[in-house]
């Protein structure tokens, strides 16, 4: 699907072999530039789990120090606390600089100098590794996050199944040269996208020059093209871990979703909203909740309900996941109940009112997720690397209105082809 976002330019800047550049004029004075770099398929092995996290931490350290030491104009054009952000997923790493609109050229220049041209510093490496190890501990202590990771290990395999923050062994085995090599490959033209949010209708000369310098500094290679969606065969099954620190069992049931941009992806987002919210199918399923062996509040609200739907990412490998808190003895009941809700959609048990509600929620949810320029800069870059655009909520509303019930059914049927589960059980 190719949605044509109003006012969004898909442009190439610079000479010769060039990376993908996407720009949006934006509104207001808050602007951002994101360098979104994809992890090349097959580049990493399981023994190198956590390499992207380590790279992200090295870049964070480097850029924070550069910002602190530079008496440059940029230092006062960044918002406190969130001027520079480095985020990553198994698919990609994104470095974002949020600035006021007129400082975009300086932000682009800063990215060029500190994220691209300056070699990663071996002196920072030990500190970066320590930081990743700490983040790993924090991540592992997040019950929902860790259970979801167990589920993804089953569902997706490959690098999607590796621990996001690696293991102590994999992190110890990685050296700065290997991380630098990975970053060079990620920055190669076919893998990288520069996303500008708030560039104005016509980027000025300073910005164009800064972009030309940035793209010129990237490793030369193949002309960037929208990447075809990666194929993947999801797998079913379960991965169970014991965790003495949890009081109840934690279960995540996951279903593979079509890649971002396809109609099946948007159908899955609608399906998600059928399950979610104060009057969604999961909240209405009091009989299932009653079987989970929990003491439920007299006046339960959606926020403290034991069954919660997680978000669906803009990704080439998205999934729909539902988390349940349950008595250990009722894990299978919870899993069957959750799968039953997806099966009901697959069988066409959808009312018009449910569909309308879910479409409306999906549009508003999209409005929330894309409200900030920094988020939009990254999401637009990720979408571009998948060969897609980032629609605004009006466009999403139009698209979702065109989704037929049969498409929802088909999406649910596809999801049921492989059901993956992650479980943490409360015992030694």
């Amino acid at each position, binding site marked *: 699907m190719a949605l044509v976002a109003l006012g969004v330019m898909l442009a190439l800047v610079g000479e010769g072999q060039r990376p993908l550049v996407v720009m949006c004029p*934006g509104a207001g004075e808050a602007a951002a530039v994101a360098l979104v770099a994809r992890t090349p398929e097959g580049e990493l092995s399981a023994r190198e789990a956590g390499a992207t996290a380590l790279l992200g931490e090295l870049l964070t350290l480097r850029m924070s120090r550069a910002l*602190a030491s530079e008496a440059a104009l940029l230092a006062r054009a960044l918002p406190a606390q969130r001027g520079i952000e480095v985020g990553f997923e198994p698919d990609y790493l994104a470095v974002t600089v949020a600035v006021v609109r007129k400082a975009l050229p300086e932000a682009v220049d800063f990215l060029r100098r500190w994220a691209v041209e300056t070699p990663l510093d071996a002196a920072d490496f030990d500190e970066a590794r320590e930081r990743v190890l700490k983040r790993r501990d924090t991540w592992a202590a997040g019950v929902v996050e860790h259970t979801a990771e167990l589920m993804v290990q089953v569902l997706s395999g490959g690098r999607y199944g590796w621990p996001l923050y690696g293991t102590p062994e994999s992190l110890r085995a990685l050296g700065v040269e290997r991380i630098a090599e990975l970053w060079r490959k990620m920055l190669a033209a076919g893998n990288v996208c520069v996303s500008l949010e708030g560039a104005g209708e016509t980027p000025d000369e300073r910005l164009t020059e800064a972009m030309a310098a940035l793209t010129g500094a990237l490793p030369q290679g193949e002309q960037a093209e929208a990447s075809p969606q990666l194929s993947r065969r999801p797998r079913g099954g379960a991965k169970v871990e014991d965790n003495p620190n949890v009081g109840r069992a934690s279960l995540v049931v996951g279903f593979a979703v079509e890649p971002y941009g396809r109609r099946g992806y948007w159908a899955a987002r609608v399906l998600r909203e059928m399950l979610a919210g104060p009057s969604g199918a999961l909240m209405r399923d009091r009989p299932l909740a009653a079987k989970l062996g929990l003491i439920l509040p007299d006046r339960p609200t*959606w926020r403290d309900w034991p069954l919660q739907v997680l978000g669906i990412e803009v990704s080439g490998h998205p999934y729909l996941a539902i988390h349940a808190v349950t008595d250990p003895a009722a894990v299978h009941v919870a899993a069957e109940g959750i799968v039953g809700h997806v099966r009901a959609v697959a069988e066409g048990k959808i009312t018009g009112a449910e569909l309308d509600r879910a479409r*409306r929620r999906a549009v508003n949810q999209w409005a929330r997720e894309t409200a900030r*320029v920094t988020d939009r800069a990254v999401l637009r870059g990720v979408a571009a690397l998948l060969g897609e655009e980032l629609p605004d909520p009006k466009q999403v509303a139009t698209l979702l209105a065109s989704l037929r019930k049969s498409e929802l059914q088909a999406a649910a049927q596809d999801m049921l082809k492989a059901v993956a589960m992650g479980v943490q059980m409360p015992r030694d």
Partner: protein
Amino acid sequence: MRLRELFVVLALVTWGLGWGAILDAQRVKDMTLGNGLHVIVLQEPQWGVVSVGLNVRCGSLHDPPDKAGLSHLLEHVLFESTDPTAPGLGLAVEEMGGYINAQTLRDFMSVEVLVASNELEAVLDLLAERLAKPAFDKEVIHQEKQVILREIADRSEQADEVAMTALWELAYPKHPYGWPVGGTKKSLSAIELGDVMAHHKKFYVPNNAALVVVGDVEAGRVFEAAKRAFGGWKAAEVGWQPPPPEPPLSEVRTKVVESQSAATVFAVGFPAPGIDHPEDVCAMDLIYTWFNEGEGSWLQRVLVNERKLALGAEAEFLTQRYPGLLILAVVCPREKELEARQAVLEAVEQLRSAPLGEGELARLKGLVYTQYAFTNETCMDKAGSIGFYEMITGYRFAFDYIDLVEKVTPEQLLDVARRYLNPDAYSVVVLRPRPEGGQEAWVPWL
């Protein structure tokens, strides 16, 4: 001045020219409905979202003396439903998939909603139904009191919250700004159903409120929808008299509290201007920025990094209807408390002794501009800013703010520092770790 410094200053000053409007005054329209409800619309023809904010001048300032926390409790109650078959305001917006946030400050309360722009009418209807014509229920009030008591208990375990609450109480022994916004266990227990209903009846009237809409919507559509949704809301005389101002501080007022924390926390509060002195407010924002914003801020660069007297520090200055506080809060090792406090006073003296250089002032203005740009990043942020200033002075201030900041001169800033940051007239709260063995080493000059 050395040549290199001159070059930097020129570069900074030049960079400051040509700032874009963060809030575009050309795109704002407003009207007042027949019942007095002020409707303000900022059209942002981008991205298909809209934010709706309903603001009511009903903050802790308006609480009766023995019922601190009443306004905050009322906000909580309005979020909930008295009808078991219908969701409360919060859940109703969640049910739509939108985002809702509500807050009670000292001067006012606000509810803000973010949704796709086609939902404008639905949100206005919902807000009108739940905020203008609510039903009240004793059980819901009891339930929300329990929620707030839990919030108070949680805050009582956070050193910074304890210090802030104690500091406002210390600085404002008479004025309602000294009362905790959420109230206390005692004040909440004194509040009954009738109090909540009477408070709502008194303050939640359209002539005491403002509706702010920012987003991908035309003003005409908003005005029509607002008339339909809120037109039946009855105006009434509010009948509230502003409290007498707090007498000026003429001493160093100190309170020491023993705490469980491993480090010392102290919060120094200097008197700060209210919105009736807008030029002073802008100068104080620059002073706040000098202390707090960015890597080059005094608290971070000098107190934490260079002199290593503090583990962390932050400043706070919220513009309010009446004079407030510039707060400098510091976490430091116990043995460095006196040195850190002395350093804070030295920093104040630095600001009082000579005007800042043009280059430094330009840097601060740039930081204020950037912070303002990003606190107005989304439609919801912008609706928040416009509503905020509408409640305490008039919404135009949100549009004029950056121009006013730009006009502040080094001499003005010096004058404001000298008038407000008096080293002989401030309040300080110290949370000191309990001494081992029960022997407290009291500092003689406290």
